[in-house]
């Protein structure tokens, strides 16, 4: 067991973990951050995407011990002050999700994409999301949602993030 301390969604956490434990397992099993999900064994699907120090990573591809001393943001920590992140709101507005399983990873990746390139073209969005698989939407409305978020990034979000 190795002791790690990190910040997850703004909260400082400390745990003893097996060195082999993946970050996604740590988030789900130790912290109950079940908003982040596992979709494959090979880091292809991107469903587990979170931010590590503000950059997107596939949390199945990071060991929990590697996150020691770092800051992790999951889908559960994306909304601030009870307001949806513009990308969350855009996914809802544009029907960019159906079953919703890929959605946390897709949103986290989209946020990263827009951080890097605030005004992407459709082609840039498509390439920027190619590490995240969706089986429901055919990507059409996901791409639309990211472009919509880019366009409306500065507008206040009407939708509250909490339980209704």
């Amino acid at each position: 067991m190795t002791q790690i301390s990190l910040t997850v969604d703004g909260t400082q956490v400390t745990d003893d973990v097996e060195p082999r434990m993946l970050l996604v397992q740590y988030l789900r099993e130790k912290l109950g951050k079940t908003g982040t999900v596992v979709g494959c064994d090979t880091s292809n699907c991107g469903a587990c995407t979170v931010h590590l120090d503000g950059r997107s990573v596939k949390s199945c591809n990071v060991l929990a011990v590697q996150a020691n001393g770092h800051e992790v943001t999951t889908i559960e920590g994306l909304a601030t002050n009870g307001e949806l992140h513009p990308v969350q709101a855009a996914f809802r507005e544009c029907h960019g999700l159906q079953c919703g399983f890929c959605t946390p990873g897709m949103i986290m990746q989209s946020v990263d994409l827009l951080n890097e390139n605030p005004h992407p073209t459709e082609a840039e969005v498509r390439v920027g999301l190619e590490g995240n698989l969706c089986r429901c939407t055919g990507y059409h409305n996901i791409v639309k949602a990211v472009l919509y978020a880019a366009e409306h990034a500065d507008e206040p979000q009407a939708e509250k993030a909490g339980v209704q």
Partner: protein
Amino acid sequence: MTATTEAPSPEIGKDRRRKEDQRLITGRTRWTDNITLPGMLHMAMVRSPFAHAKITSIDTSAAKSGTNVVAVVTGKDIADTQGVMITAWPITPEQKAPDHPPMAVDRVAFAGDVVAVVVARSAAEARDAAELVDVEYEELPAILDIQEAAEDKVLAHPDLGTNKSAFWRFDSAAAGTGTDVDEAIAKARTDGIVIEREIEQQRLIPAFIEPRSVVVDPTGEQITMWSATQIPHIVRFALAATTGVPESKIRVIAPDVGGGFGGKLALTPEEWIAFAIARRLSKPVKYTETRSESLQSGHHGRAQHQKLALAAEKDGTVTGLKVELIADLGAYAALVGGGVPLLGAFMYNAIYKFPAYRFDCQTVFTNRTFTDAYRGAGRPEATFAVERLMDDLATRLGVDPLAIREKNWIKHEEFPFTTVAGLTYDSGNYEAATAKAKEMFGYDDLRAEQKRRRDSGDRVQLGIGVSTFTEMCGLAPSRVLGSLDYAAGGWDHATIRMLPTGKVEVVIGVSPHGQGHETAFSQIVADRLGVPFEDVEILHGDTQVSARGMDTYGSRSLVVGGEAVVRAADKVVERAKPIAAHLLEANVDDLEFAGGKFSVKGTDQGMTIQDVALATFTGHNYPEGLEPNIDAQATFDPDNFSFPHGTHLCAMEVDTETGGTKMRKYVCVDDVGTIINPLIVAGQVHGGLVQGISQALWEEAVYDEAGTLVSGSFVDYLLPTSADTISFETGHTTSPASYTKLGTKGVGEAGTIASTPAVVNAIVDAVRHLGVDDVRMPCTPERVWRAIQTAGSGGSTEGAAMPHFDESEPGTSSTEGAGA
């Protein structure tokens, strides 16, 4: 009492944002794998690496001493209690099928069969110990090829004595719905046109993004199972039927479910094993599959070999279609696996007025993963076949592929139309959908560009693919299912509970997993009862809440389940009316109901239906002889299938030097009847399109000669990404279904059914002038390149669909009589 509420604008047709989304975009979702119970144990499966083998011994001693291992259980240990996997669709009374124990006892029949399960305190420890289970196998010959399976030289199940499960025929001459197809073909051979083709419908994997997961809690009076399933009601019934546990002691819950596409229309061995282990250990257990396990052992789809012959007059009027099909069931007859080809049997004649039709289907066992429904289930195969043939016919005649379709399709004024397959299409308008699609597509301009590129010998050629499709949806009239030997009904159920606070709970028997039922069904109820959209709560997926239902598949939820909701709502109004009359001191006959309000005709007196609900809650004042309750339920059993249709047009660019393909444009105009929520409908179309396009271009479950699935991870099983796909242009025409109040027809499968032939037709169209007349799916650059390179010798890729029948002997080496 005076009610002042304004009648709200209709909800039906509004692009409401989804109620579901709030929890899904914030990670507040309840997937099965998120569930953790006190004392819960974790299971890991030990699976056969061999396609066919005897289990000679299993040594569990090392695994049992693994860290925190609680139990290691083999098939022998639970042979008497684990139940059996059943099929609900034996397509003929003579159908042969092997027993399918959830955990293999003495023999495995595909690589992936479970032979032992390790139960430990954590999932990681269970998986570690599973590596320590030592299984000795004696390998047996495996049959892996669908056509060889029909020859019975190597048997998937030696005790069965044959690989042939069932032979099923529809013959229009025998059924009295048409003429004799052999006569039509014979005549066409002398003075008409005969098009013959064989098509391989490759194996596909549903590949929902949420891996299947199951939790079983045996504590308490009911055994509770949470499962990532499309069909909680059917799972509960089948558990009771096969394990001896009374149905009333079983509760099945499908919480948030991450996609299904037919892949979770399943009774899974893993569910049965979890149920048995939880009962055996009296502790809650969880099993969540890895992606590799999901791809290897969750059921596959398609896997059919089609042999086709289309007869036509010289002017292009089709005179007959003969279909001979071999369908690969894989290792076992799965829940509805045997019946999947039958869902296509009535659709090969599609939108056309063929006078003669015969469909022969031989189902066979192989030592590959068992097959079952995958989005479209039978209908994509039928649509692909007929739409490829119609293109062939157009080519033979040198006419536009849309012209040959128009010559043969059912005209708008001919509805209702009884087809050669015996179905009555109630409504549709193929002319309107096609005209709209052509306009949106810029059909004539693209044809002109195609000609320019051909004339100039451009390295990149342009092809235009057409698919004018219909499908049978809204599964299904129970009596029809009965006549097809399906074991269950096709009705569905809804209950509406009027709460005293004005909220409305709607319990539905269909079980969504991404379709947005909570939104669309709220819109229906809001309109029907005149209550605010926000006040409607849709409950589903828990057999203790939703007592009756047939679950979600076959584009049925809205068509059947939605109609049940409508009828339940109408009953609520009927029950509320005499109570409202009593409270308003008016005659029932003087009341009218509109916009959620009962009004006394000719006065301003009225009260809302929610006021009536509150009055029945207090029960202080209601008519003698009535109950203080306006809740209602309805079960709807449709009289007919619904028949969505559409025209899909696809432009593909093909690099003639590399074989690389690129989608340039995709336009579809679908007629899905009344649209409840256009946003959701568009999403269903987009997602369906990509799954169908993906069959054409990318996906295939590939086995090696030992029977190992080599495309067993997302590294090798090629799901398209956002970078591989384009944005689509979708449109609609609307011919409401005639036999329901809602008029919906179903949209879940339309895109998948229609798009595959549109793409392949476009690719072939791009390089037809180079001698290519077919490319086998998936149309990889290599296959396209080879087709171009071998144009001189027929223009098809090796093993591709190609006409090679002996013209003197129609039907030779077919499946005809194979099941006799």
